[in-house]
């Protein structure tokens, strides 16, 4: 009997902290639920405020419709219709069939007098445009501010910029070529030399495990990264000693510091232009429905999405991207023939001026 009593009392003693732990969990859960409901309430209020602001910004405006573009703007002399007629084919060729969804993302503009000092009401929706913009500048505005349809945060994070039509496609490709040659990364150099697996690594289209080893393969690169861009960040607090070790060429110290960085904060050796070109290559290869396929599954990996958009396996797509970039080598720094002729002409001209000098005509 006394044994049973002892067991019961022991069980109750053991259960007491568990019970209190349970109440702590329940308390935290209630707090989280309360926060969630507050956040949802705030979201609703923000939506209402946005909607009211949108109504205020578009009051008394006209709507211009060209293709899938919808432009809400106050009456002005801006050549928006003509600009939209120019911009629409470019936008349509990028987004393909998904461009039909663009009416869901109208442009909201307010044409303003650029020379006027009169105070205007502050609007938080849309963009102000000076009403003396010419056709070319207005078309540029439409191309550079178009909202990509169904552009999810995962794709935006990976890309590092919004996917919009390229204003100078050849320059964009040439910029990627320059990156491949000059980026301070052995992995990028290997990609330039034809290692497609390394290309996939530096483009970060596979899984994210071991990204430090993939992006910054050599000890020198890691040391340069830690002591350069992250030098100030690691110089204070608990990491100062490890930084000192890293500066003394201790590879493990540099690696440990880089591993301690929050996920996603490791700098990418290639700028967004490289990833942008990859997406453009995929969309070009995949036809009119390519963009729709690209944004169809936001939960899939970037590699799978690109592969699905392009309708080909990822190795072939990356190889095609590399070939495109290599084919866009910038123009060599040789003088053009007309510049050579101009230099010879000017030399002859000034020489002739000297011959005609009046020095001896006394």
């Amino acid at each position, binding site marked *: 009997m006394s044994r049973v009593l002892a067991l019961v009392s022991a069980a109750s003693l053991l259960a007491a902290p568990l019970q209190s732990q349970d109440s702590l969990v329940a308390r935290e859960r209630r707090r989280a639920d309360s926060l969630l409901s507050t956040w949802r309430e705030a979201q609703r209020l923000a939506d209402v405020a946005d909607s009211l602001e949108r109504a205020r910004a578009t009051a008394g405006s006209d709507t211009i419709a060209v293709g899938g573009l919808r432009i809400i703007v106050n009456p002005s002399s801006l050549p928006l219709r003509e600009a939209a007629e120019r911009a629409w084919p470019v936008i349509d060729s990028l987004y393909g069939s998904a461009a039909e969804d663009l009416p869901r993302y109208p442009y909201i503009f307010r044409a303003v007098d650029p020379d006027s000092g009169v105070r205007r009401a502050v609007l938080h929706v849309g963009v102000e445009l000076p009403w003396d913009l010419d056709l070319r500048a207005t078309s540029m505005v439409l191309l550079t501010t178009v909202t990509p349809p169904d552009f999810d945060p995962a794709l935006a994070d990976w890309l590092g910029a919004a996917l919009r039509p390229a204003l100078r496609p050849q320059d964009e490709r040439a910029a990627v*070529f*320059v990156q*491949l*040659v*000059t*980026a*301070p*990364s*052995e992995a*990028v*150099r290997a990609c*330039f*030399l034809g290692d497609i697996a390394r290309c996939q690594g530096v483009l970060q289209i596979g899984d994210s495990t071991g990204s430090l080893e993939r992006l910054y393969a*050599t000890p*020198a*690169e890691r040391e*340069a990264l830690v002591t350069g861009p992250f030098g100030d960040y690691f110089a204070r607090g608990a990491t100062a000693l490890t930084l000192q070790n890293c500066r003394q060429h201790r590879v493990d110290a540099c690696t440990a510091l880089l591993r301690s960085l929050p996920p996603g904060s490791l700098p990418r050796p290639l700028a967004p232009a490289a990833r942008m070109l990859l997406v453009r290559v995929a969309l070009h290869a995949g036809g009119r429905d390519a963009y729709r396929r690209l944004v169809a599954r936001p939960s899939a990996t970037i590699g799978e999405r690109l592969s699905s958009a392009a309708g080909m396996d990822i190795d072939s797509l990356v190889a095609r991207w590399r070939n495109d970039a290599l084919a866009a*080598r*910038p123009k*060599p*720094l*040789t*003088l053009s023939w*007309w*510049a*050579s002729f*101009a*230099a*010879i*002409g*000017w*030399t*002859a*001209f*000034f*020489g002739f*001026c*000297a*011959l*005609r*000098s*009046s*020095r*001896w005509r006394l």
Partner: protein
Amino acid sequence: MIAMFRAVLYTQWKWSRLIVVLGTVAAFAIPLLSLQGAARPDRGALQTQELLGAVQSWGALYPLLATALGLLMAIAAWAADHRGRHIHALTLPIERWRYVLLRFGAGVVLLAAPIAAVFIGSSLAVLTATLPPGLQSYSIALAVRFAFAVFVAYAVFFAVSAGTARTAGIILGLIAAVILVQVVANIANIDLNVFGAAQTVLLLGPGPLAVFTGRWMLIDV
């Protein structure tokens, strides 16, 4: 005529040999210095940008050297005549235009030395360097460009130097007038950009100084 040219060339060489020798040494050294460290075996991908940065920084010296050579050679070509108030030249049995042409030609021949030095120096620098993959050398293009820049600079300063004080005064007066017009336009708040227009005419397109602009890169992508 050939004998006369030889005589003019010899006298001009005597007057300007220091300029030619120093210019040639500088022209030979700049490409070599711009690629210093490029042959290091431990140079990895990290150093590509540094290498291009160094080449670009040193590249600014080529147009400066071309201008300096053109200016000094033009001054040296006429210095003795100016000192003697052109009396010796007037006693020669030759028309002025032929005399000027001989002087001009002699200067061009002497300037061939620094131009050749740029070509040899840059070729040597490229041969001894280990260039990262993707980078290319432009020794010939650089030497050709340097040659054009030297000749244009030499011709401009030769023409100014061959002229009278009145000619120099007119040129200076024109420059002063342009500055004055711009200052007055600024004060009167008139939308007139004479400097910008002058810059466009002189430095862009087929302008006389266009050959001096742009990037002077011995190696690049």
